[in-house]
């Protein structure tokens, strides 16, 4: 009898996700060769993740709108025309042949964000030139005195406090009463709880949600079609899902950098309590998508724990326990946490050595990679560090030299995946091609 997910051990859950990734039940390959290549690519990545020697170093460039740029399109085109998104992002994978793709989800649906009047980002044609990618607009979208509300009921706080501030069209949601009030008919509980839904501002918000939902459906069809078509051609997706460490959830988009810094000094206990409350929610967010996509790797972009952003003591008190809990929660659900340390992490290497052994992959941007290999080499697979500066302004020869050095520093014994240190946008195509081809040439294990 097949075990239900809830009854499986963490190892069984991992095995379930691994096997779905290696042999997607719904896959329709173009031909036998594509199937063989698909499986070889997943196996190559899995071997690296499991700290074994694959046939060669896997190469997965972290691309943003690179596919659009090489197709003569702008990020605006990709975000507003899903056919263009599909064709241009496919072009990159099919022509450059990386070992895995990073989906089209990097290109969010532009129109959806117009509909909801999104305040949290500027995006192409909406605060940023059509030729550039989107950028976050930091602010105090959660006020310093709202921790109790967040801690008491995160969902109700998001619905009535945070969403109306970051999505202008959802302002009416402020008027909602808690759904938990709808316990029963007797005494008018249900009747009273439904009153807000009759009010015009709430109706307007619901209309915006519904329209945005229509747009999301169109977009997700492209996301699904892209994944299926890449599988058919022999290219697996690298990411099962994504989530964030609670310190960044609060620091990036709720309180903002300055806000969370002040909270560390002025109300540390509330900050800690809120992080504890959010961590299980962040675990569920990552797991849900990994299960849906049948791929165990859960991306965790790391922001505010980088060198310099916190002192050692603050990192150990506020950031690391939250990240470790998040990773452990994901591992228990069969996932492979993939923390991606943006900026430098040189001062953190000894602390993060305490990651769940053999169960995570650590990605690095500008960290000293030889040092990362020395300290983490027996703990987990490491990923990344190809300089985005070299990819952007260097020559193909410079790129090849960097690839050679990274392989020499990191690939010994397995446990390394080649990846750019930061997202590749409008880099010279010859450099990106060399990045991939040089890894294939120089990364072979003999």
């Amino acid at each position: 009898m097949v075990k239900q997910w809830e009854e499986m051990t963490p190892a069984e859950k991992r095995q379930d996700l691994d096997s779905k990734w290696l042999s997607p039940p719904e896959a329709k390959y173009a031909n036998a060769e594509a199937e063989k290549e698909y499986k070889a690519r997943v196996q190559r990545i899995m071997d690296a993740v499991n700290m074994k020697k694959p046939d060669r170093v896997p190469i997965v460039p972290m691309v943003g709108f690179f596919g659009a740029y090489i197709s003569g399109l702008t990020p605006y085109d990709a975000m507003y025309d899903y056919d263009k998104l599909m064709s241009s992002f496919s072009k990159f994978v099919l022509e450059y042949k990386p070992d895995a793709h990073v989906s089209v989800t990097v290109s969010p649906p532009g129109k959806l964000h117009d509909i909801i009047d999104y305040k949290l980002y500027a995006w192409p044609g909406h605060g940023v030139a059509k030729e550039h990618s989107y950028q976050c607009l930091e602010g105090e979208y959660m006020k310093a005195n709202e921790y109790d509300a967040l801690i008491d009921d995160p969902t109700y706080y998001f619905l009535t406090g945070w969403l109306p501030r970051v999505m202008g069209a959802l302002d009416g949601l402020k008027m909602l009463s808690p759904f938990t009030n709808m316990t029963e008919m007797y005494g008018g509980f249900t009747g009273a709880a439904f009153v807000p839904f009759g009010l015009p501002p709430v109706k307007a918000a619901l209309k915006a949600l519904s329209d945005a939902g229509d747009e999301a459906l169109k977009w997700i069809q492209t996301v699904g079609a892209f994944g299926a078509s890449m599988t058919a051609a022999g290219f697996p997706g690298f990411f099962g899902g994504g989530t964030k460490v609670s310190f960044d959830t609060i620091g990036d988009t709720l309180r903002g950098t300055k806000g969370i810094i002040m909270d560390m000094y002025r109300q540390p206990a509330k900050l800690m309590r809120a992080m504890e409350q959010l961590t299980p929610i962040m675990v569920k967010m990552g797991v849900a998508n990994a299960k849906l996509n049948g791929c165990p790797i859960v991306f965790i972009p790391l922001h505010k724990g980088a060198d310099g952003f916190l002192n050692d003591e603050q990192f150990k008190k506020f950031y690391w326990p939250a990240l470790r809990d998040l990773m452990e929660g994901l591992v228990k659900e069969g996932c492979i946490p993939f923390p991606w340390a943006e900026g430098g992490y040189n001062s953190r290497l000894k602390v993060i050595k305490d990651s769940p052994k053999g169960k995570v992959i650590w990605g690095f941007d500008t960290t000293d990679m030889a040092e990362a290999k020395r300290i983490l080499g027996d703990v987990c697979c490491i990923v990344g560090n190809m300089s985005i500066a070299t990819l952007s302004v260097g020559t193909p020869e410079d790129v090849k030299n960097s690839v050679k050095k990274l392989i020499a520093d990191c690939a010994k014994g397995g446990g390394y995946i080649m990846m750019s240190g930061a997202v590749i946008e409008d880099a010279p195509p010859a450099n990106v091609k060399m990045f991939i081809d040089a890894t294939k040439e120089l990364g072979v294990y003999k």
Partner: protein
Amino acid sequence: MAKDLAKALADLKEDEAVAIAREKLDAGADPMGILNDAGKGMEVVGVRFSKGEYFIPDLVYSGEILKRINEIVKPKLTGGVAKKTGGKVIIATVAGDIHDIGKDIVVFMLDVSGFEVYDMGVDVPVQKIVEKIKETGSTVVGLSGFLTLAYDAMKQTIDAISKAGLREKTKVMIGGGQITQEIVKYTGADAYGKDAVEGVALARKWLVAK
């Protein structure tokens, strides 16, 4: 309670620093003197940051404490605030990039180090920076950028400074998460600072050398 405002601020003792400022003001002390003491405290914060004893959160927190002190003291101030003497520096995040955290830290560090800083904000058009150089006579410009799109915007800004005939008397430093020596060469800048401390050192070198 110790009455040393500079020390309380330097040690990030928020309540104590604010209380001292208030007490001094109530006792009839010269508001300018109180601000000078606060300035000395901020200098110590800058020095501790340079030595690696303080980190970004400490800078931000000290800035917030200073803001509270300013709010109490400034309404009582009759004369103007003393001019900075370290030289003029223009700082901007280049066109197309709206990131400000790194830029703000550089501005903060230059300010507490005695420079007169013209903070032009984010996404600053090329021509505006050229105009600011003409307007202020500043000979040091710092360009900030977090995204890879900043590489070209920095290059265009420096090209425009050259075109305006200002490049010879202007030193340009660049900085940001993805800036390396390769990018210095690509953009035609004079140097890059890997952090705010290096940015201050460059400004000091260039302005003292004059």
